[in-house]
């Protein structure tokens, strides 16, 4: 016999009322504020994309710029938008989505808002490898491939040395921090021994920029996101429960080991592929989930909202970097660092004391 609380006999029940703040969409329970946030972010992102396509050394009306994407407009529009700006915007979108997603997953996993690809050594690993390929004798691998190799190496080393995600993911964080320091030192050593021109050529891989992206790396990232984003959304149920202490999550029926590995691999994969495209673009993975959580409110883990916020941040940073001091171009990574730092401080100082992401 299974003991249950008293229940009315179920005779063809009418539609069940959703909990406060939610709506039923078929079998799916929709968090209304979360949905509004995602729709709002999509609108904002659309506007930022249009502006990014329109603004530059040649100004085009945003509507015409969007039209040019779909093949209408003057040959000049088609050239400027289609050949020059669209690939860059596309890369920015993919990189931003990947960073926002990766940060959200890592922070939730570690129950620590400081857990991001930057703090876990991934970015430093990618930078060290990419710089090595620029600085040393020409290698068979191009810098993006080396960056991806570096990110994968750093992630594999961190995972291997920490023996998986570990309790609360702390071990993973601490090992990542240590490895990151080692990789950072390697980068500095390489740059110190290189002549000034070579060091200059390696510079994009130390700050992060959308100026040197390559087609194949972007395609690979997009492919990764096609798998990673739906995976992360399917992991949503586990992610929500992972925010509780381990004993509670286990008690609720979450297979902790499998859940942690799935979340970690998705996060590391997205971050690694994005570093191969744009280098170590800082602060986005840290700040985007923070902003998304604010917009969405407590309750859900804002996977999609973080990804979209990441894309908005990245495109805005690139837009500012391209236009603020034109014709001089500032790498997007510098903009995210300069703007992101104070923004994050403001967020942290104006939010009530919070311990869990």
């Amino acid at each position: 016999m299974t003991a249950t609380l008293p229940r009315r006999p179920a005779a063809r029940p009418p539609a069940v009322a959703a909990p406060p703040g939610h709506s039923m969409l078929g079998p799916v329970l929709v968090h209304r504020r979360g949905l509004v946030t995602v729709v709002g972010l999509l609108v904002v992102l659309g506007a930022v994309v249009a502006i990014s396509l329109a603004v530059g050394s040649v100004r085009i009306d945003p509507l015409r710029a969007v039209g040019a994407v779909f093949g209408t407009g003057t040959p000049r529009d088609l050239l400027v938008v289609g050949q020059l700006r669209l690939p860059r915007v596309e890369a920015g979108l993919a990189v931003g989505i990947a960073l926002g997603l990766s940060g959200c997953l890592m922070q939730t996993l570690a129950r620590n808002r400081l857990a991001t690809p930057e703090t876990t050594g991934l970015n430093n690993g990618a930078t060290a490898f990419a710089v090595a390929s620029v600085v040393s004798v020409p290698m068979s691998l191009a810098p993006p491939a080396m960056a991806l190799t570096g990110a994968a190496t750093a992630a594999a080393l961190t995972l291997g040395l920490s023996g998986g995600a570990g309790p609360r993911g702390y071990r993973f964080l601490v090992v990542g921090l240590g490895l990151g320091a080692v990789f950072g030192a390697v980068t500095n050593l390489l740059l110190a021994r290189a002549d000034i021109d070579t060091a200059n050529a390696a510079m994009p891989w130390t700050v992060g920029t959308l100026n040197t992206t390559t087609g194949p790396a972007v395609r690979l990232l997009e492919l990764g996101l096609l798998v990673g984003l739906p995976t992360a959304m399917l992991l949503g149920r586990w992610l929500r429960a992972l925010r509780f202490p381990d004993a509670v999550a286990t008690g609720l029926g979450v297979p902790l080991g499998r859940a942690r590995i799935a979340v970690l691999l998705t996060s590391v994969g997205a971050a690694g592929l994005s570093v191969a495209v744009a280098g170590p673009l800082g602060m986005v993975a840290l700040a985007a989930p923070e902003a998304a959580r604010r917009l969405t409110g407590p309750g859900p883990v804002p996977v999609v909202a973080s990804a979209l916020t990441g894309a908005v941040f990245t495109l805005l940073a690139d837009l500012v970097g391209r236009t603020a001091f034109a014709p001089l171009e500032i790498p997007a990574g510098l903009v995210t660092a300069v703007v992101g730092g104070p923004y994050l401080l403001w967020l942290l100082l104006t939010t009530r004391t919070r311990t869990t992401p």
Partner: protein
Amino acid sequence: MTVLQTRSLTLAHARTPVIDGLDLDLPAGQVTVIIGPNGCGKSTLLSGLARVLAPRGGSVLLDGCALATMPTREVARRVGLLPQSAVAPDGLTVRDLVRYGRHPHQGLLRQWSRADAEAVDAALAAAGVEDLAERPLDTLSGGQRQRAWIAMVVAQDTPVVLLDEPTSALDLGHQIEVLDLVRSLAARGRTVVLVLHDLSSACRVADHLVALVDGQVVAAGAPGAVVNPGLVRRLYGVESVVVPDPTHGTPVVCPVGLAARTG
């Protein structure tokens, strides 16, 4: 009724075994209270019963099936756990928290059902937190928050309920409220296992008492049959007088002082 047993169960933290070869039967549909001095392995045992801690040896059996071989979700539908000093993500309301209790009953294509809604409402009522349902957890007092957590476990609707010190941080009134709730769960046929520090509360709420010292059972049975000055001395090193409670007849322990250490 669901039967929970351990067979030569060994539980360890790192390399140190805390429980070594324990055989224990937890009576179905009754309230079992585990007592013992600090560090005797009470919480460790409860973690083992809830498969939060994997056995180093032996097994925990649920209706004769080894817990370690069952899918986590299947176990979560049959065994509910309230660990000690659990913390929730920021900003959750009481109702949000209690809804998490339905997690093992839900899936991607079954995210919210009538059974979920009814179980949540019933659990809120049973734990006496209906009026607090829409309040964020961080605005509640310790006692209110503790009852919200208990409501989460009640909403999980499991035949076995494990509670680790559910009355810590509660005042006398709320302690009695929680212990009454525990009794009412057992009255509905659930098997309840608690860890409690207070011996008199333990005697009052328990059908079955299990006393642990160094991971070994030193006494097990009805409170009236096992609680005596000898047991209290063995558990806590305290000399005491044990008298029947004037209202309930259950044993009440009146400590006299520390026992003289021998050996």
